[in-house]
């Protein structure tokens, strides 16, 4: 239900940087469905566990996710994310000191 994860990569910089910690949980999505702007952790086949921001919801219910950086590997590369692949929403962001 609650998991601490350590961020690697810079696609969400400057907001999330390499070495930051995040606490993710599915609990918020039991109350309010995923919506644009939410930052989520999810399993993406071929890429592993990723963190991105939801840009919008496609008509079929898939989540289009995006990073801040133009070179970000996100839905522009691998398409939408299935809800079943979501690990959780970032509910706490602990920045690297």
């Amino acid at each position, binding site marked *: 239900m609650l998991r601490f994860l*350590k961020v690697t990569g810079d*696609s969400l910089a400057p907001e999330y940087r390499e070495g930051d910690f995040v606490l993710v949980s599915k609990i918020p999505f039991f109350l309010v469905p995923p919506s644009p702007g939410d930052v989520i*952790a999810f399993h993406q086949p071929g890429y592993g566990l990723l963190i991105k921001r939801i840009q919008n919801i496609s008509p079929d219910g898939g989540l289009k996710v995006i990073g801040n950086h133009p070179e*970000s590997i996100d839905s522009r590369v691998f398409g939408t994310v299935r809800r079943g692949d979501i690990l959780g929403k970032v509910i706490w962001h*602990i920045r690297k000191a």
Partner: protein
Amino acid sequence: MIYQILNIFDQKVHIETVKAHCDIPCGIYDPIVAQISALTVVRMLDLMTEFEAKTPDRNKEYMNSMSRYIAVKEEHAERAKAEIRVIWGDYLKAQHLEKYPNAHALVHKIMQLGSKVRQTTDREQATQLVEAINEFAQMFWETKGIATKRAKAPYAPALELVYPAL
């Protein structure tokens, strides 16, 4: 304070990582490696032709040298293909493909020519490979808003390459 606690915890137990995956620090894409590799293929073919003409004996020394030229030709043809595949697969995004609808066909042509120059000793095919990769380089730099220029490579076989005009 909380970060330090988590960091110590991470060092001892290892917190799972989540990737804000990006092609950084890559983000460094440049078709020049593919261009030079294609040029190397032409160079190897030229060396093979020269060597064949001046070496009448088909002895083991001949076989050894010719094998080395062929090995380098193989390696660089494959490298040219690999470099183009990475730019095509990782760098080019949907908005680029909308603007350059010929990109897929061009990459396919490069893959085919790359294979052809491995299979044969046809210099014409090799120069076509150089030119196809030049065309790709021009498209690549245009996607970055960088003008290009054509200039002869400052080494044999001195074919024209597309360079960014910085």
